[in-house]
């Protein structure tokens, strides 16, 4: 109640200022008059009485002020006054204001941009209802510790689905590339084959039609499909009659029953534009040995993850006993879908960027603080006068703090613009098909949490970095300052030292940023330049997959690839051609389990390696080096005991010490035993930063494949061969969709695009940091010279040569710069240790970097000092001595 009254009183004071003031005035006057009358009764004259009262009880003006200041509304008024004054001051010095605002906009903007990614990828929950209840199942080997990478066996899944009690729904799915024919050019569309409850479990609603029902999943049910909004509006031109329309997938007729909105995405699946029910035969459903089916589920309300884990543990213990041959040591790892998706997002890279932009922000703030400090010393007189007139130190400091807060807020606003530019640039650098795997892609934008973050940072930095000038200036000794002859003071010693500390700290931070960035960029360049084991230059790759319905026999697969290959071989400009089941950086691969004959595995122990089926001249087309033995040749034809070529690391690690040539490997369950005939160099299959791994090659003739990557090494630019390859393929099969025709270098670039973005950002930030650091030094040195002009004049008048003056100034600047650089190097030695996991063939204490960066900085510092020093040198002593 009293609070309300207090507020009312304050509001009245604010809005009825005149009246309140008049009343108070009258009351105080009355008070002083009555007091004076008392005194006059004692015999004083009126004049003396009034004067005595003023001394004893306080003067009218001061009392008015005191009473007025006691109300809460006066604080508001003060703030408002300060704000208006600050705005006026900032407008009067447009140069300073622009520089400061720009600096802040870039510093804060970069932080806001990176934060919005952190928010979208790691903080915001998945865009499904109650995402905390979604979990992923994957098979795990308890004894040997390996996990299957997000998949399980079909039989295990369906048994669990029937018998579990913890889950509301369980879903199996698989990514798929689906051939769309009819209605235009044959197109290979990324999509998924899913259990009927896929969409319902995720809580996704269609924009047209319906999702799948249990009916659709029965074997023998009519084929149905669901499109994405993008596919519907693209290939089918937004046909309003799309529901019920028949489309041809893989040569068979499917009825469209629904369309999903463009915002729907399961990051584990990547970009998907087309879904059909999962067509598993009864035999496939009963298959317990092959672990390949991705699956997830939604917990029942009230069931915790621990309870679910307990249930699966019991369930699988039971399965272990019942099916020892396939399930020994196996169980399910049940993990939260959110955690799993977040783990894939490249946390370390984003965190590194976040730290770097944080450092850049500190540098920017230090610069702005220095600018404010410098400006404050030129206004020292103004504050001295105000202090003499009665302004309290608190009031003056408040004024300065308001100025800096206003500056930072304007910078913060400008930063939003900069942030959105930055984010748009980053998104443009991420290639198309990768985007599907990134959570919330396209929906990372300026939203509430980002605005809050920006505001928070702005206020925090404004307060922290505004404090120094506020503190400094309110402390000046009015007497001393007013007696100074020059409009600028010699500045308090403390103020100058503060600025030097700021600049040294700035430089140290900039050195840390530069060293870290250089290490990362160097690592990136090395990873890009280092040989992947083959020569990707001038190589064109055409990838496709033959549909099961059309190509049912192995002989058909073989004929297809032979025919296409024979056509491509004779193309003008084709130096060398071959084909493989998978190409490096093609985006997918195949693995196989193997056993070395004579080295049986323990029960439950498994051993696998990537497997590629290749045509005989694959190695020569790709220019993969032979280490021992031979390549495949015409003797490795169909029907004969298979030949095998393995990679060097595999030879070393699996058959340690022994000569691999002639050894026998058993591949998978169904495949027969093959003989190792050669060893080749290691190659990079998926990532530039890959460690060398195992690889098994088999002849395509003996291991027919459904997927193909036709490899063509051209004598010139490979892109001109693209149409020719397409025509060759379509000459063999008119309706065969081709998933991609790209130079191999492009495929590699796409995969390394994430690293490239980080490297580009690092370059940008390090240039920015160095630029800001240079400006910082320049600013301090210029101000220093200005402050010491008097002293310089005296020295020159006493006989110092200009060169001497220059040396003096330069040495001071250099001391400052070197101090900062030294501190930065020491800090960097500690900091770069954190980067170790991200570096490829570069040590965290790479000597070349640690020598060249500080050297570069020393040169920059020297250059920044040069201009002020030169100016100082040219001072005319007569002018300097007279300088006011």
């Amino acid at each position: 109640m009293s609070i309300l009254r207090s507020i009312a009183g304050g509001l009245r004071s604010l809005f009825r200022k005149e009246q309140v003031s008049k009343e108070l005035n009258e009351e105080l006057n009355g008070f002083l008059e009555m007091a004076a009358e008392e005194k006059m009764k004692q015999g004083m004259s009126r004049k003396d009485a009034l004067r005595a009262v003023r001394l004893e009880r306080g003067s009218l003006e001061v009392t008015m002020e005191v009473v007025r200041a006691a109300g809460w509304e006066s604080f508001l008024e003060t703030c408002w006054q300060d704000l208006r004054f600050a705005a006026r001051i900032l407008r009067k010095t447009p140069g300073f204001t622009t520089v400061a605002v720009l600096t802040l906009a870039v510093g804060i903007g970069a932080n806001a941009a990176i934060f919005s990614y952190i928010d979208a990828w790691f903080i915001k929950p998945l865009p499904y209802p109650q995402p905390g209840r979604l979990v992923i199942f994957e098979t795990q080997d308890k004894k040997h510790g390996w996990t299957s990478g997000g998949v399980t066996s079909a039989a295990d899944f369906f048994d669990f689905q029937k018998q579990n009690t913890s889950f509301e729904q369980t879903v199996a799915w698989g990514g798929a590339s689906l051939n769309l024919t009819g209605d235009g050019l044959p197109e290979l569309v990324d999509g998924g084959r899913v259990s009927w409850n896929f969409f319902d479990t995720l809580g996704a609603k269609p924009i047209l039609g319906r999702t799948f029902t249990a009916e659709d999943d029965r074997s023998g049910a009519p084929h149905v499909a669901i499109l994405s909004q993008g596919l519907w509006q693209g290939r089918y031109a937004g046909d309003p009659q799309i529901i019920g329309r028949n489309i041809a997938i893989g040569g068979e007729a499917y009825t469209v029953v629904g369309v999903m909105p463009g915002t729907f995405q399961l990051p584990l699946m990547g970009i998907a534009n087309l879904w059909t029910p999962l067509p598993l035969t009864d035999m496939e459903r009963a298959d317990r040995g092959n672990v390949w089916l991705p699956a997830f589920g939604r917990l029942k309300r009230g069931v915790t993850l621990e309870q679910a884990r307990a249930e699966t543990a019991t369930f699988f213990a039971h399965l272990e006993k019942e099916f020892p041959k396939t399930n020994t040591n196996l169980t399910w790892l049940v993990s939260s879908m959110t955690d799993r998706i977040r783990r894939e997002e490249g946390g370390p890279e984003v965190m590194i960027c976040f730290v770097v932009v944080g450092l850049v922000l500190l540098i920017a703030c230090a610069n702005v603080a220095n600018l404010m400090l410098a400006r404050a010393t030129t206004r020292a007189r103004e504050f001295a006068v105000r202090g003499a007139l009665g302004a309290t130190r608190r009031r003056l400091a408040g004024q300065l703090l308001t100025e800096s807060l206003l500056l930072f807020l304007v910078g913060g606003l400008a930063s939003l613009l900069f942030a959105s530019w930055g984010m748009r640039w980053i998104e443009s650098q991420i290639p198309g098909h990768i985007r599907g795997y990134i959570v919330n892609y396209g929906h990372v934008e300026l939203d509430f949490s980002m605005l809050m973050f920006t505001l928070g940072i702005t206020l925090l930095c404004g307060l922290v970095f505004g404090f120094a000038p506020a503190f400094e200036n309110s402390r000046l000794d009015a007497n001393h300052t007013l007696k100074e002859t020059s409009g600028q003071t010699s500045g308090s010693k403390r103020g100058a030292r503060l600025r030097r500390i700021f600049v040294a700290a700035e430089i140290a931070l900039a050195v840390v940023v530069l060293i870290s960035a250089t290490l990362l960029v160097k690592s990136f360049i090395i990873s890009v330049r280092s040989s992947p084991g083959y020569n990707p230059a001038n190589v064109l790759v055409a990838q496709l997959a033959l549909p099961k319905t059309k190509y049912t026999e192995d002989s058909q697969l073989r004929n297809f690839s032979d025919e296409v290959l024979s056509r491509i071989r004779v193309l003008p400009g084709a130096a060398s051609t071959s084909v493989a089941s998978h190409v490096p950086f093609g985006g997918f691969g195949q693995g196989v389990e193997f056993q070395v004959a004579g080295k049986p595995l323990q029960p439950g122990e498994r051993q696998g390696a990537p497997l590629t089926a290749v045509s005989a001249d694959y190695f020569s087309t790709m220019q993969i080096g032979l280490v021992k033995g031979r390549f495949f040749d015409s003797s490795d034809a169909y029907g004969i005991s298979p030949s095998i070529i393995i990679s060097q690391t595999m030879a070393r690690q699996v058959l340690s010490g022994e000569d691999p040539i002639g050894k026998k490997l058993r591949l998978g369950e169904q495949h027969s035993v093959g003989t190792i005939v050669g060893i080749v160099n290691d190659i990079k299959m998926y990532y530039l930063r890959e460690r060398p791994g195992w690889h098994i090659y088999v002849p395509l003739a003996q291991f027919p494949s459904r997927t193909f990557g036709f490899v063509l090494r051209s004598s010139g630019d490979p892109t001109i061969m693209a149409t020719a390859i397409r025509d060759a393929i379509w000459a063999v099969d008119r309706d065969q969709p081709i998933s991609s025709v790209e130079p191999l270098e492009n495929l590699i670039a796409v995969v390394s695009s994430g690293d490239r973005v980080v490297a580009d950002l690092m370059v940008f930030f390090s240039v920015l940091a160095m630029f800001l650091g240079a400006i910082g030094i320049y600013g301090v040195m210029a101000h220093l010279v200005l402050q010491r002009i008097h002293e310089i004049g005296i020295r020159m008048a006493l006989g110092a040569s200009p060169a001497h003056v220059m040396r003096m100034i330069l040495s001071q600047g250099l001391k400052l710069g070197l101090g900062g650089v030294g501190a930065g190097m020491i800090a960097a030695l500690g900091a770069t240790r954190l980067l170790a996991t991200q570096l490829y063939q570069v040590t965290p204490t790479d000597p070349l970097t640690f020598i060249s960066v500080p050297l570069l900085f020393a040169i920059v510092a020297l250059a920044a000092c040069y201009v002020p020093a030169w100016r100082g040198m040219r001072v005319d002593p007569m002018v300097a001595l007279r300088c006011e």
Partner: protein
Amino acid sequence: MADKPSDLVQGTLDMLILKMLALEPMHGYGIAVRLEQMSQGVFRLNAGSLFVAVQRLQRDGLIRGEWKATENSRRAKYYALTEQGRKRLNGEIREWGRQVAAIARILETS
């Protein structure tokens, strides 16, 4: 001069002013004079402290102000205790008594 009242804790000054007004409604100068008299010169208020306290008490609803004519037919603002002010005063006096007794006890023992 005589800035002693500003050494008084804010709450104590409020309590004393309330007590003054409990005796009879007064204007500002009257409060100051009466306080000086009753404290035998120990408490001499200056205008600032007095009117800041008065404004505060007014805003908290403990006293009510009214413009009236004085004996010398001059206009002055007279303040009187409100019901709430009376209750607050009684509470403060009780609390003050408790604290004084406690302090006395402590000082006695040492």
